[in-house]
């Protein structure tokens, strides 16, 4: 499996556009957006927030980018492309006889999760760097930053929640690519689901919490983590996310295991 994963990484590294837009652009763009916003505040007011910033807690909040609808479009594109390239280049015939289907799908899943985790790590360290820069600009220096060890579990949990939410997205994108053998057939529904979830939440408000969609499950978990939501809602959110993840991944594996690769 390790060699298979190395092969998948080699393919991704040789497609820098896919690596950037599919896995790294969301954290980088969100950091740039944050920099722009903080910069505007700094330029307008001449100073930053006086309160010292807990860098770990700030990074944990920053990991909420996994719930961003536009982010889902780019992440969906990345995950779907990883699988779709085998249909596009008719290269299943090189891989399936060598490895068997479940191992291949698991390796591609592993690739996407590790690449997404790398993106989240970029987001974490980028957020820390940004806070450091703002502290320097603000003239507070190191005094403007706080490193609370008690915030580390929060950061780790926020990371796990973000990865689980993106894991659901990857599983959905994989299932759709397998069913439609198309890139657009996967990316558009993933994006529409993300946009739809946001719109439903806007229209229904708190009533939307009863709908078992992955985006709401992840949000309920984050609310619980940052102490703005009840624990039972957080648990329900975890159950929803895990259920979607397990269901979609199992369905993708089952469909791919029986798929006729008669023209690829």
């Amino acid at each position: 499996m390790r060699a298979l994963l190395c092969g998948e990484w080699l393919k991704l590294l040789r497609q820098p556009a896919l690596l950037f837009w599919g896995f790294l652009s969301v954290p980088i763009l969100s950091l740039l957006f944050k920099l722009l916003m903080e910069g505007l505040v700094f330029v307008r007011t001449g100073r930053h927030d006086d309160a010292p910033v807990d860098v770990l807690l700030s990074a944990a909040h920053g990991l909420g980018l996994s719930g961003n609808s536009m982010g889902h479009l780019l992440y969906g594109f990345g995950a779907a492309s990883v699988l779709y390239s085998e249909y596009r280049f008719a290269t299943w015939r090189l891989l399936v006889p060598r490895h068997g289907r479940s191992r291949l799908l698991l390796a591609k899943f592993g690739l996407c999760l590790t690449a997404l985790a790398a993106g989240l790590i970029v987001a974490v360290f980028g957020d820390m760097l940004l806070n450091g820069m703002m502290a320097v600009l603000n003239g507070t220096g190191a005094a403007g930053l706080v490193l609370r060890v008690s915030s580390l579990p929060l950061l780790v949990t926020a990371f796990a929640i973000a990865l689980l939410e993106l894991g659901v997205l990857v599983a959905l994108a994989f299932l759709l690519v397998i069913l439609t053998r198309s890139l657009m057939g996967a990316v558009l529904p993933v994006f529409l689901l993300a946009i739809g979830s946001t719109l439903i939440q806007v229209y229904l408000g708190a009533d939307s919490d009863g709908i078992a969609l992955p985006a709401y499950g992840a949000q309920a978990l984050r609310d619980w983590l940052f102490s703005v939501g009840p624990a039972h809602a957080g648990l329900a959110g975890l159950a929803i996310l895990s259920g979607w993840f397990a269901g979609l991944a199992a369905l993708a594996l089952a469909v791919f295991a029986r798929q006729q690769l008669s023209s690829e």
Partner: protein
Amino acid sequence: MVLAESETARQAPAQEAAIGLSAVGKTYGWGAAAVRALDGLTLSIPRGCVYGLLGPNGAGKSTLLRIIAGLVRPDRGEVSLFGEPAGPRNRRRIGMLIESPSFYPFLTAREHLEMFAWQAGTPGLVDPVLARVDLARAADKKVSGFSLGMKQRLGIGAALVGQPEAVILDEPTNGLDPDGILEMRALLSDLARREGITVLLSSHLLDEVERVCDRVAILRHGRLAAEGAVAELLDRQGRFWLKVDEPDRVLAALKGRGEAGEGGLFVRLEPAEVPDLIQTLAIAGIRIHEAKWVKPDLETVFLSQTREAAP
């Protein structure tokens, strides 16, 4: 370079098939649009031989290869590899080039082979295989710039780099220049004769199959139309040519076993019957000007097997 001969292959009993198919059937589509690609095909490919798979377009060759590769599931029947039911574990013992070679355009030839070699645990074979398929000079070029012939060579390299016990090559000489075809022919013979690797070769080049293969199977409408050693198949279709004074009289006496040819007649008979026929003609006072066995080439056999009426 000599790829190490597999211990398993050498020690296995000669009778054990490298690839076996038992009553394999496959239909694509449903209802009126259903197309039966394979119809209860049973085939056994012995170890260490070069086996040719022939058939007109739509005969089921590609489906058969895809089923062996695990790309398509048969509706019924069993596929076995090296005496065990086919699965991912024993498919790894086979190198495959299925249909047209497909590769990642953004990787180089070396990167492709390295990737497959890591996965097979044979990283030391990358350079020797590149040299063997004559891609050493183009090894670090991206595949997007390769010609069809170069892709074909890389496909064969990819099939060999895992040190397989058997290789399945679908139209391996497609896109190769005449020199490349000769090299390929030598390579195929080498694989089987020197390294004991079983080769299953699908090709439309009958002359090539006749030169390279030990045994052939001819498919027609998803069924086996003919199978056997090449020499045996040619012998089976051999006819005896006679140029005599009174061909009509001889034809009448042969009662349907003969047919008129240009300036003589062809007779279907066993080699052991020839002396009796000559003697009978001599006793009957018929002068014989020419008598010889005429063996067909594989093309003639192929056409006779595939042009028969559909079942």
